[in-house]
Structures are given as structure tokens and as C-alpha cells.
């Protein structure tokens, strides 16, 4: 495996910082940090799908929508404990993810991406159609609202639990199977890996994670769930986060979550970058630049730096016959 700070050091280190942060940061900044936590869960989930099994999804915002509405509706109708709603959102989205993943097996590459795009567009329309129950464009308001510190705590606790869960899942057989699917479907099939099972499982798991993230998202939005919050832009943000994160490291996912959680929210008081027009330009530029310089995402940064230092740039490039344009 990569030589990096052993988990023994990095995980507690991060955990320690997270515990201390709310005491240092202002209320607003605590809220931002909580948002990063929400994205952490979502990006972690999407990373399992994209990074590990190589399936591209532009639709996981839909699962966040389902999770978010679950929380809002359960809280509104049954006054359910908010933490419990997160669990329910997780479970529901797991099932929905499996249900989507199954027929999605027939689709490959770009077609799958477009199918998930269809999801991202369609699901937010559902509340508008079933407006009596799901609030229409007015949204659903949960009667419970929580303070920023509570939200921060909830977000990062859930993040910690789900990170541990992901670690447990990925280090074992399942993780190996996922990676086999990504690296070479043909070889995986030939070695007896039941591709369909694992691909569908990956969908279910990633959906569940995004469901939990969606629940947290709504909690963070003063308990308010509205179709506009879960538009296509959200799904694209998640994909950007997962790609920027790269594969295989805690830091990468943290960085990816911070990238999509913080950058679009840069304070307007910052000159140029913060202005309404400048913000998009800079953000877009950064996304392009990060991918150009680090196609493996921020997780690949240490390896990239190392190889740059050694000056053997060529070795890290994949083998490619000249004249061919794409792998």
C-alpha cells in the first residue's frame, strides 16, 4: 500500500482536530465545517461507487433528496428523533440504490452516466407531483431545528461511523471484488467474481451514504427540505468531490469534501474571488486545474509529488502505445 502516515496517527489526529474545532470557530464557520461533514459522507459514498467499481454516477443528488425528504417528512408527521431519521434514510436509500443498480447493470459507461442523470432530474420533480404529501415547491418543514454545534456534532459523528463502516467493508473481500470490477471486468468475470452482485451492492451502499448525507443536509438547512436544493448541480458537486478526492485515502476525501463544501461559499468580502461573478470563474478554473494536474485526485498527490521529486515522471504514466488517443 502507499506509504503515508499510518492510520494510527492520521485518524486520531483528524478526530482530535474535529473535536476541538467548534470551540475555536465562530458559529457561522462551525456551520460551514458541518457542511463539509455532510459532503464528507456523500463523497465517501460516491467514491465507493466511482473510485472502487468505476461506475460513473451523475445522479446521487437524487439519493440525497430521498434521504432529506425522509427526514423532513418523518419529523413533520411523526416527530421522529432526528438521528433515527438518519438511520431510516440510510436504510431506505440502500434499498432504492439496490433497486436502481439492478437494471443499471445492463448499461455501461456513458449510458449509465446518462441514466443516473435521468435520476437526478426526475427525483426532485416527485415532490412537485405529490405536492399534497411532499409539500410541492413549498417544501416540507420539520418542526425541529437545531443549533450549529449540534449539527456539526451530528454531521461529524455520522461521518466517523460511516468512515469506519467503509473501511471495514473495503478492506475485505468486498473491497477486493470492487477493485477487481474497476480494473478489469473481463478478468473479474473470468476469476469467478459475480460482477452483477458487487456492482449492485456498490450502488446500494453509495446510495445509502448519500441518503444519510441528505438527511444531515436537511437538518443543517433548518429542517427544511425543498426540491430546489437537490437539483442537478448538487449531483455534479458530488461527482466533482469524488473525483477531486481520488481514491483510497482519508485525506483525499476530506480534501474533496472541503473542496465542494467550502469553495462555493467563499465569503463575498474576499476581493475578486468572493464576488458573485468571480466565484464561478475561480471555482470552475480550480476544478479544471485540479483534474489537469492531478487526474488521480488529491489522494494521488503524495505519489505525484514523490515521482516529481525523483524526476522519473514517465514511470507513473500508464503504458500507452503511441498514436492511440484513448485508453
Amino acid at each position, binding site marked *: 500500500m502507499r506509504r503515508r502516515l499510518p492510520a494510527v496517527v492520521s485518524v486520531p489526529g483528524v478526530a482530535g482536530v474535529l473535536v476541538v474545532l467548534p470551540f475555536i470557530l465562530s458559529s457561522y464557520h462551525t456551520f460551514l465545517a458541518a457542511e463539509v461533514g455532510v459532503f464528507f459522507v456523500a463523497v465517501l459514498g460516491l467514491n465507493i461507487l*466511482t473510485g472502487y467499481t468505476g461506475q*460513473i454516477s451523475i445522479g446521487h443528488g437524487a439519493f440525497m433528496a430521498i434521504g432529506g425528504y425522509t427526514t423532513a417528512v418523518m419529523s413533520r408527521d411523526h416527530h421522529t428523533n432526528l438521528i433515527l431519521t438518519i438511520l431510516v434514510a440510510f436504510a431506505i436509500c440502500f434499498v432504492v440504490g439496490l433497486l436502481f443498480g439492478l*437494471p443499471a447493470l*445492463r*448499461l*455501461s*459507461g*456513458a*449510458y449509465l*452516466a*446518462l*441514466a443516473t*442523470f*435521468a435520476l437526478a*432530474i*426526475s427525483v426532485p*420533480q416527485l415532490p*412537485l*407531483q405529490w405536492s399534497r404529501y411532499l409539500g410541492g415547491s413549498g417544501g416540507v418543514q420539520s418542526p425541529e431545528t437545531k443549533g450549529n454545534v449540534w449539527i456539526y456534532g451530528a454531521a461529524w459523528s455520522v461521518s466517523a461511523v460511516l468512515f469506519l463502516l467503509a473501511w471495514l467493508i473495503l478492506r475485505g473481500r468486498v473491497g477486493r471484488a470492487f477493485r477487481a470490477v474497476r480494473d478489469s471486468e*473481463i478478468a473479474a468475470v473470468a476469476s469467478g467474481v459475480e460482477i452483477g452482485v458487487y456492482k449492485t451492492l456498490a450502488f446500494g451502499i453509495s446510495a445509502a451514504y448519500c441518503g444519510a448525507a441528505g438527511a444531515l443536509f436537511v437538518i443543517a438547512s433548518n429542517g427544511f427540505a425543498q426540491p430546489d436544493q437537490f437539483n442537478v448541480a448538487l449531483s*455534479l458537486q458530488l*461527482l*466533482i468531490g469524488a*473525483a*477531486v478526492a481520488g481514491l483510497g485515502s482519508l485525506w483525499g476525501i476530506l480534501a474533496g469534501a472541503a473542496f465542494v463544501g467550502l469553495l462555493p461559499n467563499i465569503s463575498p468580502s474576499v476581493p475578486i474571488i468572493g464576488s*458573485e*461573478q*468571480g*466565484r*464561478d*470563474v*475561480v*471555482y*470552475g*478554473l*480550480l*476544478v*479544471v486545474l485540479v*483534474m*489537469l494536474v492531478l*487526474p*488521480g485526485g488529491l489522494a494521488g498527490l503524495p505519489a505525484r509529488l514523490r515521482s516529481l521529486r525523483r524526476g522519473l515522471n514517465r514511470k507513473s*504514466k*500508464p503504458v*500507452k*502505445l*503511441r*498514436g*492511440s*488517443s*484513448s*485508453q
Partner: protein
Amino acid sequence: MERLKTADVGQVAIAVVLLAGAIALLVCSLGSTKFATSTVAGVALGLVYGSLALALVLIYQATHVINFAQGELAMFTTYIAYQLIQWGLSYWEAFFATLAIAFLLGTVLQVAVIRPVQHRSVIATVIVTVGLFILIDGVVNWIWGGSFRSLPSPFGIASYDVGGVPIEHLWVWQAGVVLAGLAGVWALFRFTKLGLAMRAAALRPASAALAGVRVEVMLAIGWGLAALLGAVAGLMTEPSQYFLDQAFMQPILVYAFAAAALGGLESPAGAVVGGIAIGVLQTLMVGYVPQITSELQLPLAFALILAVLLVKPNGLFGRRQVQRV
């Protein structure tokens, strides 16, 4: 005889269904003026979708990447046309100048931004196009944001009368210009050496290189061409809007995605046919099923696509991709 043996039975079935659909449209149009008007409007709209869808397919065929920025690029070039007109050019001067600028922009983007990353990872390339989407949006907002603007349309609002059926000038122009563009691209690919080289570079880059084709240059030209088709789509969509608004190409892009998926990402003809199908379905729905609000149209279009993909995972005209082990 050999040719017939290898033709897919499925392809024949699809052709038959499409033909039946076209005949049904014709018959209904002859019966009802309203139907005829809707159909013509739908075909014109569908051709615009098809133009953008073709741009997507061209890029997908060459680089196996879905270009998320295609719509915003088209929007950007439309704003450029607006600006050129502000600076004194006539509509048609601006039109052709914009096409040239779009072509240039496309090639520059491929060389500067796509080429460095396309070899390394598909997802990275896709994210780059997403980043471009955001970037272009920001740039347009920066340069032109704020005030209301509108692009003067040379087509007017008059209608022709064809046997009692009112056909707006606009539709004729939309269809005509897009068809001219499509015909040009088709002729390029079918008859010219350059077109053949581009096809070869997309099909088998390694073999094309061995024949002396500069594959990377072909890809850049492909992107330029796609940007040009997008510019046509943008300029032909704009007259239907009252104001020039940054987001106007976004729904078009979504329908173009749907059209490309419907027709099959590997099939240029499929993209155009898919576009027309979606355009006609859309206008007919608006005319006859008013319960379907404009917000619902999009998800419905995609529900349709998903249904088709379940049966034909590579789109209506897509080829089964046989993977060489």
C-alpha cells in the same frame, strides 16, 4: 447478399417502427391543422436538439467522453454573436463569424484542456468538462451579467400558410439552417479525405496513425466541429426566447443528452433522429396533454429514454460494443 445477412434484425425492426411513426404523424397532420402545426414545430425544435446531440456524439465517438460543457459553450458563442451585432455587424455576418469563432474555440479547448487529461482517465476528463461548464457560466456572467439583453432575430414572427396550416417563418429557418449544417458535416465525413481521416481516428486511432493520420489533430478538429454545431443550435434556439439569458441552453443540453442516449451514442444519425423524436413528442404533449407541465417534460423524456435503454442498452441505433479480450 452478404450485407443483408449481417444486418441486425433489431435494426430493421426499429426502422419499421420509426417509419410507421412517421406515417402516423403524416396522416394525423393531414387530418388536423393543430396536429400539423405541432408536428412541424416539433420537427424544427427536434432538429435543434439533434444538432447539439450530434455535437455530443461526435465528441463521444472520438474521445469516449460526454462533454458537459457543450451547451454552455453554445450559449457562450451565442453571446459572442450578440456582442458582434452590438459592434455593428449584420445578423448574418455575425452568424458566420460566430461559427468560425466557435470552431476555433473548440479546437483550442481540446488542445489546451482536454488533451493533457484524456489519456489518463475518463472520469477526470468528464470532470474537466464539468469544470468548464462552471467556468464558462462564470465568464459569461462576468462579461455580460446583469442587464437584460436580447438578440435580434431576422426571422420575424410571420407565418407561411401551407394549405391552411400556419407554419412560422422561424421553424422553417430553424430546420433549414440546422439541416444545412448537418448536411455539411455529413458531406465532410462521407466525401472528403479529412472526414475519412477523422472517422478513422475515432474508430481505431492506432491503425489510423499507421496510415499517416495525425490523430491528435483530428481530435482537435472534431472538437471544433462539435463547437460549431453547438453554435448553430444556440443561435437557432435563441430566437424563441425573449431575452438572452445565461441558462437558456441548459434544458436544450438535457434534451440533447436524451436524444443522444435514445439514438445511441455511437450513431450520428441516431442523434438527429432521436432529437427529432423528442422534439415532436414534446410539442405534441404540450398541445394535447396539458397536464404535463414543463417541469414534468424533462423527467418524462428521460423515463422514456430509460425504458428504451432497458431494451436496447446502446440506444436505438447503437452498436453492441464487442470488447476484445
